[in-house]
């Protein structure tokens, strides 16, 4: 099956014993796991005071690496976000940006998010909202970070009904509750889980709203494929979730 991974990262995460990938090592790792293409963002942009340096490194180190599509991080709470967006958008490989409201100290309800949506729409770029990066119960003890409230995402979609958003990191109950209400929303499977994940999701959710995601290197890459490979859903459906839906979503 042809896999397009909606959620991978380069760089180090200081609070766990997960791998730290360069763009090249990530590409090799994903290839070993049978994943041909991936959206990749820089972990260095999550905790740094501004995402610029990590974005620059992402764009530089992914150049020429087949299959890695850079997804820079934008922080609309910073005064320079328009300049940062203009810089990353100048690279023709950039087709989407990722935001992490809970790590960067703003709500999806903030006026700056509306302005970012307008700017992305004008540039023909897509928006990925990282709803959770880590299970908040396991955050480093000094980090008091909660997931982005799903209701805030719903309010964003209410304000922008034609906005194509990829929500990354919703839990199984959140996927079952919110996706049927917002048919324009695409969501990745990073934190989706039930004993028979896909069949359980499909009781409530359309297959076209789901996208394969491994969350490498924070989660075990092979575990993501284990949600799809042994599934009893049809091949057509699994192919759509593995890559087709995200391919269609990207501009």
């Amino acid at each position, binding site marked *: 099956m042809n896999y397009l991974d909606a959620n991978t990262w380069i760089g180090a995460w200081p609070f*766990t*014993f*997960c*791998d730290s990938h360069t763009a090249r090592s990530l590409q090799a790792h994903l290839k070993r796991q049978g994943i041909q293409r991936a959206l990749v963002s820089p972990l260095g942009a999550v905790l740094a005071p501004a995402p610029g340096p990590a974005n620059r490194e992402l764009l530089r180190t992914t150049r020429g690496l087949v299959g890695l599509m850079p997804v820079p991080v934008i922080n609309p709470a910073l005064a320079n976000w328009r300049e940062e967006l203009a810089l990353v958008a100048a690279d023709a490989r950039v087709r989407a940006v990722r935001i992490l409201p809970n790590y960067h100290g703003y709500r999806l309800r903030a006026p700056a998010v509306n302005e970012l949506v307008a700017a992305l729409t004008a540039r023909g770029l897509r928006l990925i909202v990282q709803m959770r990066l880590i*299970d*908040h*119960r*396991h*955050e480093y*003890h000094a980090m*008091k970070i909660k997931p982005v409230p799903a209701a805030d995402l719903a309010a964003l979609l209410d304000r922008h009904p034609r906005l194509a958003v990829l929500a990354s990191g919703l839990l199984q109950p959140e996927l079952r509750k919110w996706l049927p209400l917002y048919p324009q929303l695409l969501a990745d499977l*990073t*934190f989706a*889980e*039930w*004993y*028979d*994940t896909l069949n359980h999701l499909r009781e409530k959710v359309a297959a076209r709203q789901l996208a394969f995601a491994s*969350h*490498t*290197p*924070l*989660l*075990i*890459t*092979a*575990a993501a*494929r*284990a*949600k799809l*490979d*042994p599934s009893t859903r049809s091949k057509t459906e699994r192919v759509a979730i593995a890559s087709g839906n995200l391919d269609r979503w990207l501009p």
Partner: protein
Amino acid sequence: MRIIDVHTHPILREDQRGPAGAAQLIRRARAHGIEHLVALGDVLAFSRMQTAEQVQLINDETAAVMRAHPHFVTGFCYLNPLLGPSAVEAEVARCVARGFRGLKLEIANNARDACMAPVMRAAEQHGLVVLQHAWSMTNIHQRRFHTDPEDVATLAQRFPRVPIIMAHLTGCGVRGILAVKNCLNVVVDTSGAAPEAGLAEFAVEQLGARRVLYGSDAPVRDFGVALARITGSRLDARTQRMLLHDNASALLRLP
């Protein structure tokens, strides 16, 4: 690869599937190559502090799953230690007579509480394994009734002859692994939360391969994902075999 899953809840009211759901879950387990599983009961049914009658009902449901799948399911007897020594001893005796091989503790109380003494004495008397729910309480402020890995260590030191499975490797995390490192009667199951990278390897490095067991926490977790915590790790094939099968087989004295 032979696989024993030491942490499942075939019946879960939250799932609204009932006994038919248990059969469905077991079919799915078999499809993943699992040859035996431990059923722990619907341990949060009704509330976190069930009455004696509710505890009996939970264990009756587990017994029914065992009867329906006699060579596939081992039952663990769920207990609410706050019901007192008489209730605990009576329920353990009732479950042992029906072939249960272990005791399951959830979040009625913290494992360091005095009410655990009759539970552990019963486990020792009947030669049972104790599976204690545990999670790091660093970010969950419920330690009054919710067991942290440090509390499992306290329990294990008080009752060193009782084998204890500390549930939820990912929930316990690095600090939890280190907390029980010197408690040789404690093993850790790999169930719980998303499949965070690096933890299975760290657990084996610190505790040794004999003290880590595969568990899924199905239906809350996907069997395939839970298995990939081990098969998708850097652990060698022999170690994976121990975690997936041999350790549980020896602990539960399965044929």
